[in-house]
């Protein structure tokens, strides 16, 4: 026998009683006891029955609808009014309470109506019971109350920002509801973020006017910390908000006003660097590090500052030169700047490595700054020459480096190489360096061979063996020259007849390693001529297929000056010696007579005579006794000359080889450019003009920066020599001609 049929209306009426009881429990009415398991089973079974009765008494659909209606009715009648009646924190509290009640209700009702979930909802493709409950809450309660609730939440956050204490757990719960309903991001998070933005926008606007950079940064750091807490693990915002909130705050506090902040007159980045405020700089790094492209803003200010500091050093150097009466042309004064640049570099590298945490963006900024500074000239003297003068001072005798320890010298040389990396015209430096090295080596002015070799080693390590090839060749030449000299002396010993009558030492240099010198002819005195002949004889007996070209301009001579009071040994250049020896045969000689007898040109002779008669030691007396040499002057041996020392050096200032160095380097560059062009075109066969120029510059960048005009000139030259031709279809392209 089947069960008794339960009519809908009747069954529902019974259910209503249960639901009312549930409502009462939720409302907190006393004396309502919680449901027992029997009650639960009874209701569940009733619903089960009502659903499984044979048609037309199958009430699944109706019950489903009634379920929904129940919830809706409750929300409308009870929940919404209660929310409407409350404000601020009380609203929030009620909101939280009502949601938790709703969950309980949904739970119980779902359990009662569970049969529907099992067999009806899927079949009818309708949402599950819990889903229905959620939707009802969202559509009815949430949509009505949300703006007020959101506003309340945001104003509480405001209060907290302003320093008041708020009920954080309440906020957390309320916000959690949003998350549960699935309405957190929109509309809540959006509002919250916009609100945070405008809050910090206002703050930033007022702080930036009043606060110094360090205090602004402190406030910014503090604000970020607090906001991070809000969205952190212990915070009440969803942790997904953290990044977004951070970005908003960073944008308002750090990005919008970046320029004004970093460049603040008395407290900005430049000031902090100058005053060595490491802590503040570290904070700056921390703050900007997390912002994308943020560090670039700091780097730009940093770079500008370093360039400014360096430029000031250059200005000071120029002023110092101009104010002093000292000789500007030698470049000695100006070379001091190299040491200052080294110090500047050390200092700012210190910041990059220290408070800027070795960051690449800052490294690059420093590099770019020094690339600007290291290519500046001082009073028209190129940076390449200055740095070679600086090295010369360290490596030569009497340059002041004897007082320094080996470690200090090594360190300084190391740093010089670092600076050199920033120089564009490395080939120009090499050429100046070679010139100075020649003087040091040939006039025995090098302080320490070890240091010389050490420096070449460092250059080789940084720029490759090709760069130091010639210089190393120079040093080797002198080692070999010592052996050659020894065997020459043996030869003389064995062939006493060929002895020239004066002690002669010769250095044989390999052409190509050593710089080229303007060859000036001179008629040597017979004693010296004999020396040359003897050595030529010796050398050709020892070697074949080698040609010796004598460079008298580089020689030195020790000559005895038999003055009235005493004999003084004079160390002079070969040219000076040849001039002086003329006076062994003549009492008085005019400028022109000397010129004829020595077969020198006017400029050279002027220099020589000046060093002998108008400088510190007057070996010759000049008539008239003026400070300069003129064609009509007469010269006489100054027998009255004397000096307490037994031996003195009479320097012959070197000619201004600056122009020649630049000429030589320009010539080499033309060859280098040609070679680069041919190499590139050989491998590419066809290439457009701009591309060719680009690759050429790239290929040569290690040594120097070629001028695009010169490159064009060389290309045209190569076209003229049929190495290349223009492409017949596109005049902007070149073709390699095999």
């Amino acid at each position, binding site marked *: 026998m089947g069960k008794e049929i339960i009519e809908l209306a009747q069954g529902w009426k019974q259910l209503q009683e249960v639901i009312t009881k549930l409502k009462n429990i939720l409302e907190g009415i006393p004396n309502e006891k919680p449901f027992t398991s029997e009650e639960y089973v009874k209701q569940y079974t009733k619903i089960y029955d009502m659903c499984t009765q044979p048609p037309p008494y199958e009430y699944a659909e109706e019950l489903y609808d009634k379920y929904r209606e129940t919830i809706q009715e409750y929300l409308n009648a009870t929940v919404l009014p209660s929310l409407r009646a409350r404000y601020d924190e009380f609203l929030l509290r009620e909101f939280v309470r009502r949601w938790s009640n709703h969950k309980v209700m949904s739970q119980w009702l779902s359990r009662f109506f569970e049969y529907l979930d099992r067999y009806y909802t899927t079949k009818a493709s309708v949402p599950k019971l819990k889903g229905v409950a959620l939707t009802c809450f969202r559509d009815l309660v949430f949509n009505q109350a949300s703006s007020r609730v959101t506003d309340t939440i945001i104003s509480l956050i405001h209060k907290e920002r302003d320093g008041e204490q708020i009920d954080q757990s309440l906020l957390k719960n309320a916000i959690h509801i949003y998350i549960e309903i699935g309405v957190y991001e929109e509309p809540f998070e959006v509002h919250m973020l916009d609100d945070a933005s405008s809050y910090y926008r206002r703050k930033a606007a007022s702080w930036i006017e009043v606060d110094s950079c360090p205090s602004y940064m402190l406030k910014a750091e503090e604000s970020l910390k607090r906001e991070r807490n809000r969205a952190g693990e212990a915070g009440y915002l969803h942790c997904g908000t953290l990044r977004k909130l951070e970005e908003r705050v960073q944008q308002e506090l750090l990005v919008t006003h970046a320029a004004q902040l970093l460049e603040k007159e008395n407290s900005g980045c430049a000031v902090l660097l100058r005053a060595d405020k490491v802590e503040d700089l570290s904070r700056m790094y921390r703050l900007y590090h997390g912002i994308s492209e943020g560090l670039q803003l700091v780097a730009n200010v940093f770079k500008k500052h370093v360039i400014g500091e360096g430029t000031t050093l250059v200005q000071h150097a120029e002023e110092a030169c101009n104010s002093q009466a000292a000789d500007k042309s030698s470049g000695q004064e100006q070379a001091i700047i190299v040491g200052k640049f080294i110090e500047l570099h050390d200092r700012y590298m210190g910041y990059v490595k220290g408070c800027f945490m070795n960051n690449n963006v800052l490294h690059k900024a420093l590099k770019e700054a020094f690339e600007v500074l290291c290519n500046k000239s001082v009073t028209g003297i190129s940076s390449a020459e200055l740095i070679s003068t600086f090295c010369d001072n360290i490596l030569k005798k009497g340059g002041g480096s004897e007082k320094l320890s080996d470690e200090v010298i090594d360190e300084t040389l190391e740093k010089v190489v670092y600076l050199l990396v920033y120089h564009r015209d490395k080939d120009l430096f090499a050429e100046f360096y070679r010139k100075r090295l020649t003087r040091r080596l040939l006039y025995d002015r090098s302080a320490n061979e070890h240091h010389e070799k050490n420096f070449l080693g460092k250059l080789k390590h940084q720029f490759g063996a090709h760069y130091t090839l010639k210089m190393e060749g120079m040093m080797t030449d002198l080692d070999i020259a010592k052996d050659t000299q020894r065997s020459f002396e043996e030869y003389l010993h064995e062939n006493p007849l060929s002895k020239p009558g004066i002690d002669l030492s010769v250095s044989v240099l390999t052409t190509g390693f050593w710089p080229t010198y303007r060859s000036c002819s001179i008629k040597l005195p017979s004693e010296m001529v004999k020396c040359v002949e003897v050595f030529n004889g010796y050398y050709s007996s020892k070697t074949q297929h080698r040609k010796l070209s004598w460079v008298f301009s580089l020689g030195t001579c020790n000559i005895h000056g038999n003055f009235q009071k005493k004999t003084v040994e004079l160390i002079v250049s070969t040219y000076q010696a040849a001039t002086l020896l003329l006076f062994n045969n003549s009492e008085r000689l005019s400028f022109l007579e000397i010129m004829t007898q020595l077969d020198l040109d006017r400029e050279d002779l002027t220099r020589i005579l000046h060093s002998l008669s108008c400088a510190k030691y007057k070996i010759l007396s000049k008539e008239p006794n003026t400070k300069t040499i003129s064609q009509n002057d007469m010269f006489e041996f100054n027998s009255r000359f004397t000096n307490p020392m037994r031996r003195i050096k009479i320097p012959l200032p070197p000619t201004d080889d600056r122009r020649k160095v630049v000429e030589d380097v320009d010539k080499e560059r033309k060859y280098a450019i040609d070679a680069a062009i041919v190499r590139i075109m050989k491998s590419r066969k066809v290439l*457009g*003009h701009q591309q060719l120029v680009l690759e050429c510059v790239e290929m040569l960048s290690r040594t120097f920066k070629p001028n695009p005009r010169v490159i064009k000139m060389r290309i045209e030259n190569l076209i003229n020599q049929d190495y290349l031709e223009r492409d017949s279809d596109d005049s902007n*392209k070149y073709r390699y001609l095999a």
Partner: protein
Amino acid sequence: MRRSSTSKKVGQSNSNSSSSDLFRSASSKASSKESERIDSLFYSYANASSGLIDPEGIEALCADLEVDHTDVRILMLAWKMKAEKQGYFNLDEWRRGLKALRADTISKLKKSLPDLEKEVLRPSNLSDFYSYAFRYCLTEEKQKSIDIESVCELLTLVLGSQFPSQVNLFVEYLKTQSDYKVINMDQWMGFFRFCNEISFPDLSNYNPEHAWPLVLDNFVEWVREKQK
């Protein structure tokens, strides 16, 4: 017209009657008559010992044509002949030129000159004529460039009518500057491209970073300085 119809007739007459045979021999006789006249015209100007028309002969030719020997039309004639050596025409060249112009007498040659001018100045031929003019002036063996003075003259002669303002300005520049003593073929052709591609006188689309010869970069700079 006559020639082509002659050749048609030749083709046809191979299989045909004696009347066209008669006509063919008449027309080929006519064309050979023409060749004869061309050749005899050649010999009337040629130097007996060298067998070539030398500068003296050319002068005589010019007098007969009533054209100055420095006139550009003589250069154009040389071009039509594809003459290789400046100041000389050989028989082949003469034949080539006169046959192409269909002139076998002085008066016909003279009458053909205006059309020749038009032909040369057509854009499709101008570039060829322009480069020919340069090569024609390279008189020494292995000579690759022409001195500035001559270049100025040649430029005015060859392009003066087409691009007068550019030519005048460039000639002025070449005469005042001192960096270049000669101009080579690449620079010469570069100027032609310049006239054709660059808007004048504003020079707004000139880009020195392109592969323009350096002399033109300098020229443009000079012009811009002048315009200030």
